């Protein structure tokens, strides 16, 4: 028996599928390993394919259609709102940057006002607080800055 490919494989396969294997083809298959393998594999695969489920047991096409539409709509919305989201983030970044610049500009004035306000306030309360005016201002500024960073991060995470 030869083990290489055979020119009659296609012919023998076609005949087997039509249930019309002639004696000569059958005789050939007994002497040709390639054709014998073809017949054996075809029979095995048809047996294997015989266990396909009925259409009722497969996922519901109505549901697939509906979900596909839902998904398509969601993607359309995401595509449509993408420029808005980009502009929103850009505006937020500009706002943050502007605020930082503004704060550095007005910082000396702000500090002197705050110092005055804090020293007035400290004069009014008992002298038991452990922090001085500048330290309190620093703590206050840091808190505001942290809140600002957290707010920006929240915006970014939601977007």
């Amino acid at each position: 028996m030869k083990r290489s490919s055979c020119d009659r494989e296609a012919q023998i396969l076609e005949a087997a599928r039509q249930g019309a294997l002639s004696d000569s083809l059958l005789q050939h298959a007994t002497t040709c390993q390639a054709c014998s393998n073809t017949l054996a594999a075809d029979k095995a695969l048809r047996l294997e394919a015989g266990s396909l489920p009925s259409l009722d047991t497969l996922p519901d096409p109505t549901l697939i259609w509906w979900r596909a539409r839902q998904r398509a709509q969601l993607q359309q919305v995401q595509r449509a709102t993408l420029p808005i989201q980009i502009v929103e983030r850009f505006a937020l970044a500009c706002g943050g940057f502007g605020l930082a610049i503004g704060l550095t500009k007005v910082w000396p004035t702000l500090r002197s006002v705050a110092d005055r306000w804090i020293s007035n306030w400290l004069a009014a309360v008992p002298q038991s607080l452990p922090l001085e005016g500048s330290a309190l201002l620093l703590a206050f500024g840091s808190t505001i800055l942290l809140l600002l960073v957290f707010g920006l991060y929240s915006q970014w995470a939601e977007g």
Partner: protein
Amino acid sequence: MDEAAFRDLYARTARQLWGYLARSTASDTLADDLLQETYFRMIRSGFKPESDDHARNFLFKVATNLVRDHFRSAKNATLPLEHSPAVDGPGRHVRLRQDVHRVFQQLKPRERELLWLGHVEQFSHKEIAQILGLKAGSIRLLLFRARRKLADMMNEAGLGPEVLQ
């Protein structure tokens, strides 16, 4: 494509496609998921089938890519072995089918895909090449090797041609 046309196409193609996916992935659950994803992608792409063959080629190609993508990620690299054919019909036939199934599952995924597309779906070599992303000229040899391997494994498992009669 409207919903009615989709349902028609689904009725004509889903069983075969599911069979291919179940044999390629060796998992009924995964076959269900990938079947849905295949049709999702078809709908989303706005594909308009010119004929049933055109639709079949498209669907099997998408399904093949989905199977590849699924197993490409490291966490899904190992094949589940939960799939077994439905147990119905006369006893001997059922046992034989299960034995054949076990042997079939021992083939490599690429060999299973090739044999399924060539023998069960009866795609031409050119179509198989398009679906699997291979050169058309290599299909004949790959099919020959896969058939020889399956036949050898069947013989080893005591499932020679005389048993399958």
